[in-house]
Structure formats: structure tokens, C-alpha cells
């Protein structure tokens, strides 16, 4: 290929803070995920689930069914738009169902978002610019958090808005604002924990297969193990091995709704465990993210 005759033009301008550059990492990460057609199978599952809830809410509120019939229909979907005291928050239940989709999506996209930077030695590309590894790590964590939020928190809030929209007044939103806060709190816990875990795991394992196997082991085997140990010893603290339960408990701790006293007892421990795991992962991540990787 010959040299293009285009002339070189200079550029003069002010460079902004490297923290703003982390948003570019988020933008590019979302671009990477949404451009992969194979991921749309998983994203489609999440969208389908969201639309199902959306249609159910629409149908029930517009069909003006008797209250009992409405309640029965909601129960089929495990959803309660305005929970009574001691009742499970329907939006949180929706987010938990969406979390399965998120888990599958992250298992596959971790390699693309983070692992590829290590595998293709792209870290010098990032770290030789004006950002350092703090900005890189924060950018990648925000990117994963954005994906998690787009599949859990945002649709849950949309459902909350939808339900309020179909009621005759703004009374639903005013009376149940705590639901929106609890959705945000649980969403924040999901984002923080899942992003730190997947970014660290992907930084070390790099390729799709090992990440997917380890990730699914974390979130499937530990649930089974926790359940088995609890059955064998009748000790509820074994439930703390289940990361989903830990995240749910911490979410509940954020907005103070507990169905059972037992859950309340172990919620603080769940927070300690998650904080500990996240802290260890962050230390490992900081050690792993280096511009120069000398092996021999």
C-alpha cells in the first residue's frame, strides 16, 4: 500500500482529567458486548423476561381484574408491586431472576472485556496514555456495572414506573418510594460484587472456558454446597456460602426488610463476607494490572 498523500495537521486543545477517560472505557466495553451477536441470545432472554413482566403489569392494570385475581396472577410471576409488611418485594424478585441472565452474560463477556487486554497484551495501550491502573480498573468495573444495571436495576425501575403510570394518580410512586430506593440499593450491591469478581477472575484466567467454568462453579456449586451443609448440620450460617443469598441479604440490609429473623441474624455476616471477598479481589486485581509483564 502506498503512502497516502494526506498532510499531517496538528492539534491544540486542553486535555481533561483522566477520570473522565474512564467513561470511554465504559463506552467501548458496552460497544464490545452489544456488538457481539452471540451475546444477544443471552441479552434476549433478559429482555424477554422484562417484557413478560411489563405485559403482565399492563394487562392486569388495564383489564381491571378483581383484587384477588390480580394477586393470584402476580403470584404466578412471583411479583408484588406494593408488598405488604412481611411480603417479598416483587421488583427485587424480578432482579434476582434477571441475575441469572447477568451471570451467564458475564461468564462469556468477561474474557472479551478484560481477559483480552491481558491475552493480547493491550494493557500498555491503555496504561501508556494519561490514565494509570486506578483509572483502568475503575473503568472496567464501571463497564461491568453498567451491563449489570442495564439488565437488573434499570428494568426494575422501569417496571416501577410502569406500574405507577397505570394507576390513576401519582399516589403509588409517593407511597412506595422506598421500593425504588431498595431497588437501587440492591442494584448497587449486585454491581459492586459482580463487577469486582468478574474483572478479577477475567484478569487472571483470561480465556472464556476457564472463566465460565469458575464463574458458574462460584454461583451454582456454592449454592448446592451451602444447601447440603445446612441440611447436614442444621446451621443457617452455612447459607453464607451462597453468594446470591449474601448479595440479597446485603441488599435487604440496605433497606431493612427482612421476612425472617434468621435472615436478619446472618445479614451482617453476609456483608462482612462480601466486603472481605471484594477487598481480596481488589488487592489481587491491582497486583495483576501492570503495564509491563515480564515472564522470562
Amino acid at each position, binding site marked *: *500500500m502506498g503512502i497516502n498523500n494526506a498532510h499531517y495537521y*496538528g492539534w491544540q486543545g486542553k486535555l481533561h482529567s*483522566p477520570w473522565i477517560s474512564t467513561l470511554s472505557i465504559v463506552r*467501548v466495553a458496552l460497544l*464490545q458486548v452489544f456488538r457481539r451477536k452471540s451475546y444477544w441470545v443471552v441479552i434476549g432472554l433478559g429482555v424477554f423476561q422484562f417484557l413478560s413482566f411489563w405485559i403482565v403489569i399492563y394487562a392486569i392494570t388495564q383489564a381491571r381484574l378483581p383484587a384477588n385475581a390480580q394477586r393470584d396472577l402476580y403470584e404466578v410471576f412471583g411479583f408484588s408491586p406494593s408488598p405488604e409488611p412481611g411480603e417479598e418485594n416483587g421488583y427485587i424478585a424480578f432482579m434476582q431472576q434477571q441475575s441469572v441472565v447477568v451471570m451467564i452474560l458475564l461468564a462469556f463477556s468477561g474474557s472479551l472485556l478484560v481477559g483480552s487486554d491481558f491475552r493480547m497484551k493491550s494493557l*500498555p495501550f491503555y496504561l501508556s496514555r494519561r490514565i494509570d491502573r486506578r483509572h483502568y480498573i475503575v473503568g472496567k468495573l464501571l463497564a461491568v456495572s453498567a451491563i449489570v444495571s442495564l439488565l437488573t436495576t434499570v428494568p426494575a425501575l422501569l417496571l416501577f414506573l410502569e406500574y405507577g403510570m397505570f394507576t390513576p394518580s401519582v399516589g403509588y410512586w409517593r407511597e412506595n418510594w422506598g421500593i425504588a430506593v431498595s431497588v437501587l440499593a440492591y442494584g448497587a450491591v449486585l454491581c459492586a460484587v459482580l463487577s469486582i469478581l468478574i474483572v478479577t477472575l477475567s484478569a487472571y484466567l483470561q480465556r472464556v472456558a476457564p472463566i465460565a467454568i469458575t464463574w458458574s462453579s462460584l454461583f451454582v456449586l456454592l449454592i448446592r454446597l451451602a444447601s447440603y451443609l445446612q441440611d447436614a448440620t442444621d446451621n443457617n450460617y452455612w447459607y453464607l456460602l451462597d453468594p446470591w443469598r449474601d448479595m440479597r441479604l446485603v441488599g435487604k440490609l440496605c433497606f431493612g426488610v427482612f421476612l425472617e429473623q434468621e435472615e436478619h441474624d446472618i445479614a451482617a455476616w453476609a456483608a462482612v463476607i462480601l466486603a472481605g471477598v471484594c477487598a481480596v479481589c481488589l488487592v489481587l486485581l491491582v497486583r495483576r494490572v501492570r503495564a509491563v509483564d*515480564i515472564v522470562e
Partner: protein
Amino acid sequence: MHLVDIQNLSRNYGHVRALVDVSFTLEQGTIGLVGNNGAGKSTLLKVLLGLLKPDAGGGTILGCDIRHATRELRGRVGYMPETAATVPVLKGVEFVTLAGDLYGMPHRDARRRAHEVLNYVGLGELRYRRLEEYSTGNVQRLKLAAALVHDPQLLLLDEPTNGLDPEGRQSMLDLIHDLITETGKSVILCTHLLPDVERLCQQIVVLHRGTVIRAGAMAALRHAVGNRFEIGWQGPGEGYVAALRAAGVEVSLNSHPDRATVQTPAGWNNSQFFALARERDCVLTQLKPDEEDLERLFFRVTEEKGPAPTSALPGEELKHGH
């Protein structure tokens, strides 16, 4: 202000000394950083860029302290890494825009500038293709575009012709040469391909086993070899060459029909070139001392320091650097 001013710089990996008490000063222009594999070139480049912290010593580039002013430094320096270092799924223009964003350019400027530099490096037509579809040569151009996007004063190019076929290499060298002559930017070219340095660079830093054994203007470092000359003539050359050989001169003909490199015997007087030319009806048009080329210069200075090891970093598992 010097372009680069490095004093007593050292960097170790565990107990392996990658850079040992390195000191040199370079002026604006094109600088070749040469050495055998494992001599410490890439380590030095990364220390200069602030990607690795030196264990001892320090210095400045463009007046910025390499220890403490790394962010300011990177705003004024463009780095083209040796590795592929691309981001999968992105298109060419998105990749270069990302580089601009990471430098801290406003996004709109970064995008506009990405189009400009991609045009400049000859990738204008390929800018909307995904990076997976780029050939090795195009990836090298793309990395150069990413290093140029914020219009740096200094470019650090780590093995820019690595992995390219002869045509691609020539094309890349043309591009870098064009960039240097058109923009007047300073370039530090890190490579073990001496012809690349010889073609592009005015200054040179020779690294050997982690130490700088020569640094400065290339012309000043070249030795004139006392009894070797380049000669040129007009007229019947066969007879003239035969006469020179008969007088004990070793003649190496080159591709040019009326030029040669000659090595004179002991006791030779240069007036004999003219006398023999007159005898054979030739006119001597050129007689100049033969300067050693970069390859000979490199081997001479490295041999003075002893044979090169197979690697400055012997077979040992090292952990990450800084």
C-alpha cells in the same frame, strides 16, 4: 533544553540487572535505540515513558521528570508498543478515538482527529473495518495513528517494522520518514534492525547488557577506517581496476559500474590513485575515506565490550515489573 537527559538510571528485575547506571543526553531529532535482543531497549523505553519506575537515577524528557511528571509527559509523548495491543470488536476509527479519549482529548476532537491521522497513515479506506480484519502491516499503521492522535512532540516507536514483509517494512519506513520530515517531530526508534536506524536516525544509543556503550550523533560515532576509501572514476575502468590490483590494492566493486571500495596496502600514497588513473586514461572523480556503516559500528562497539549474551535476562521466571 535537551530532548532526553538521563542520569545514572538503573532498573532491576529481581536480581537481574536490566539497566545499569545508564546516562546519556540527546537532542531533538530522530534517535535510534539499538541493541541485541534482551539488551534492555524496551525496558529503557518503558522507563522513559514512566511505565516502569527506575530503581535508581532519573532524568527528564521534554523537561518532564520521568519519575514524577509521568501524566504530563504522556500528554506530550506518543507511544507505539511492540505488541499487537488492540481491542477486539472495535473498528479502526473507534480504536484511535479511544486512544485520544484515554489521552484526555475531548471526545469530539478525538473522533475528528482519529479520521485525520488514519487518513495520514494511509488507513482512510479501512477505518470502518474491524481490527480483526487488519493485516499485520495495517495494525502497525493503526498503532502509529493511535500514538499520533493527540499530536505529541515526541514519538516512542517500539519495533515499528516488526513482523512486516519487505514491502510492508519499506512502506512503514517511508511513512515514518515522511512524518519526521513533514512535522519535524522527534522520534525515538527502538529496534534491532540496524538498516532501519541507518535510514531514519541522526542520533543513536547503543545498549549492550543493560548499559549504554555509545550515545550521540551517528556521524560523530562512525570511525573513518584509515586504509579504506571509496573511489569513483570516468573512463575505461577495467584497466584502472587491474592496475590498482597489480599495485596491491584490494578492490571491491559495487553495483555502480564506475565506483569501488578499496583497501590500500602499507606504504601506499594516495597520489598513486591519480597517477594510475592518468596512466589508464581515467579521471578520478571521487576519493573519500570509507566510513563504517551502522552494522560495522554496532559490532565494533559491542565487541569492545565483549560478546553479547543470548539474553540479558537469563532463563528465569520473573514476576511483573512495576
